[in-house]
C-alpha cells in the first residue's frame, strides 16, 4: 500500500509524485490514513471520517459493475483527482437498454479486444423497447477493454468500451 518507489530528495521536501501517489491510493482504497516512513523521514496523510450524507440503503445498481449507479454515499472530494491516462478513451452508453455484442445470436462479435476500430464502426447493438440501436464508434483506436457482456442491461452513461 505504501509503496517505496520514489526517493525523497535530501532536502526537507517531498516529491509531488509521491504525494499524489499516496493520495490516489488513499482515495482509491478508501483509506483514512497513510503513514510513510523512510529512515528518519516519515510522511503521514489522513482524512477525516466521511461526513454526513445519509447513506441509508444504497440502491442496488441495475448492473453491479456499473460505475455510475450507487455512487459512494458521501465522498466529499474523496477521490483525489486521478490523472487519467491520456490516450485511453471510454465509450459510455448513450441510453438505457440491453447490449448485444454480435449482430445476431451465434454470429461473431462486432469487436474484440485488440481490434483496430475506425470512427463510425459499429461497436455493438443497444436494444431499447424492441428497437435495435447500432452504436457507432465516436472515434478511431484500438479496443483495450470490453466492459460489458452480451445480453447485459446497461444504464445511461455506463462505460462500455475502452479505446486506446
Amino acid at each position, binding site marked *: 500500500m505504501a509503496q517505496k518507489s520514489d526517493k525523497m530528495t535530501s532536502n526537507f521536501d517531498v516529491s509531488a509524485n509521491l504525494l499524489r501517489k499516496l493520495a490516489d491510493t488513499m482515495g482509491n482504497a478508501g483509506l483514512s490514513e497513510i503513514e510513510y516512513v523512510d529512515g528518519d523521514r516519515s510522511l503521514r496523510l489522513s482524512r477525516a471520517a466521511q461526513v454526513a450524507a445519509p447513506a441509508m440503503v444504497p440502491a442496488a445498481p*441495475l448492473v453491479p459493475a456499473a460505475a*455510475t449507479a450507487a455512487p459512494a454515499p458521501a465522498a466529499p472530494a474523496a477521490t483525489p483527482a486521478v490523472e487519467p491516462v491520456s490516450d485511453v478513451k471510454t465509450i459510455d452508453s448513450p441510453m438505457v*437498454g440491453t447490449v448485444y455484442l454480435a449482430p445476431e445470436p451465434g454470429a461473431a462479435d462486432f469487436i474484440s479486444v485488440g481490434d483496430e476500430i475506425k470512427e463510425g464502426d459499429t461497436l455493438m447493438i443497444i436494444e431499447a423497447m424492441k428497437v435495435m440501436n447500432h452504436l457507432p464508434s465516436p472515434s478511431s483506436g484500438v479496443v483495450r477493454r470490453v466492459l460489458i457482456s452480451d445480453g447485459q442491461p446497461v444504464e445511461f452513461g455506463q462505460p462500455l468500451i475502452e479505446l486506446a
Partner: protein
Amino acid sequence: MVKINKMVIANRGEIALRLIRAAREMGIATVAVHSTADADSMHARLADEAVCIGPPPSKDSYLDKRAIMTVAELTGADAIHPGVGFLSENQEFAEMVEAHDLIFVGPTPRHIGLMGDKIAAKKAAIDAGLPVVPGSEGAISDIDEARQLAQEIGYPVLIKAASGGGGRGMKVARSDEELDSALSTASREAKAAFGDPVVYIEKYLDNPRHIEVQILADAHGNVIHLGERDCSVQRRHQKVVEEAPSPALTPALRADIGRRTAEAVKFLGYRSVGTVEYLFQDGEFYFIEMNTRLQVEHPVTEMITGLDLVELQIRVASGEVLDIKQEDVVFEGHSFELRINAEDPFNFMPSPGLVTAYHPPGGMGVRVDSHLFADYRMPPHYDSLAGKIIVHARDRRSAIQRCLRALAETHIDGIKTNLELHDFILRHEEFQGGDITIHWLEQALEVRATG
C-alpha cells in the same frame, strides 16, 4: 385485481420519496430512475434499485418515455408511478405503459387527454353538471368574436391557453382597449410554452379563493371525495401554503361541493385520485380544471382524514375495489403544508447548490416530506421545491402556532430557502384571520416591500 410486485418511480425529488415510502410500506419493490444530475439524490438512494436514464435536462431523462419504459422492462417491474409533473399527465405515456401490459398508477389515458385539453375539460365539466366560469364555449380565434363575448360576460376577462397550466399563457383584459394585445400576447405565449396557440376567454374573478376537492375513485364506479384544500396563498399562480379544511367553507358548503364533485367524477367514469380545482367567490364555486394525478399538496388531506392517498391510488390502480364509503371519511383537525423552496424568500431568485446543513423540525403533529440531506447538492436543472413541512393540530389557530414552532426549528444551510417568507405569512394578521384571496400574498408582499 393484480398484485403489484415492483414499481418504477418515474419522478424525482420529494415526491419520488413519497412514492417510495408508500410502496415500501406496501411491500412493493421500487426502481428509481434518475438523471446523471440526480445520481446522488435521495430517491436514487432509497429505492431498491436505481437506474440512470439520461443527462440532466428533463427532456432527455425524466421526460424520456422510451428510457423509462426500457427500465420497467429490464427490471421486471409491473407498474409505473408517474408522480407529479413530468409524465404524470401525459396521455401518450399512459397509453404506452398500458400497451406494454404494465399498470399505470393513474387514470385512463382517455381521462388524462380529456382534462389536459382545457376547452374539452370545461365542456366535460358542464356536461357533468359542475359550475364553470362564464366564458367562451371553445377556442377564440378572432378579435371580433372575443370582443363580443367579453362585452357579454363583462370585463375584466381572462384569456387562457387551451393547453396551458401553471399560469403561463394567461392574460387579463379590463377593457376593449386591452383585449387585442392581451389576446395576441396570450396566444403567442401559449404557442411558445405549449406548442399550441389556441386560447379561450373567461370571466375574470377579482377576489376568488382557490379551493380544490380531492377525489378518490376506483375502476368499479365507486367515487368518494376527501374534502377540500384551500390553496389561496399563491405567488405567480404557484401555491405556497395549502390548508385543509378551508376556513371559508361551512360544513354544508363543504358537503355540497364534495358531493357534486364526486357525482361529476363518477359521471365521467374517472378512476384514480384526482383533484377538481375551483375558484370560490361570493359563496359560488367555478370549475377551473381537473388534475388527473396526485397533487403536491395531497398531505394536508392525509392529515385531516388519516388516509394514505398514495397507497389508495396504488390500490385502485391495481383494480382493488374501494372499501371506504363516503360516510367513513371523517375530517379531524386542521392541517397546513408549507412548501419549502430553494430560493430567496422575497426576491424569489432560485438558489440551487450544496446543502451544507439540514435539520428538519420534529415533534408532535409535524411531518416532513423532503429529499434534502446534509451534503446534498441541489441541481439547478429542476424546480426549486426542497421539501414540505406539513403540520396537523386540532384547529387552525393551533396549527398556525405549530407551524411557527416547526419553522423555528428548521435549519437549512448552504442554499437560500423561503422559510422567512413562511414566517411572514404565518404571522400576518390577514392570513391568521383567514379572509384572503389568491391575490393576497402578492399584495401583502407589495405592502411589505414598500412599507
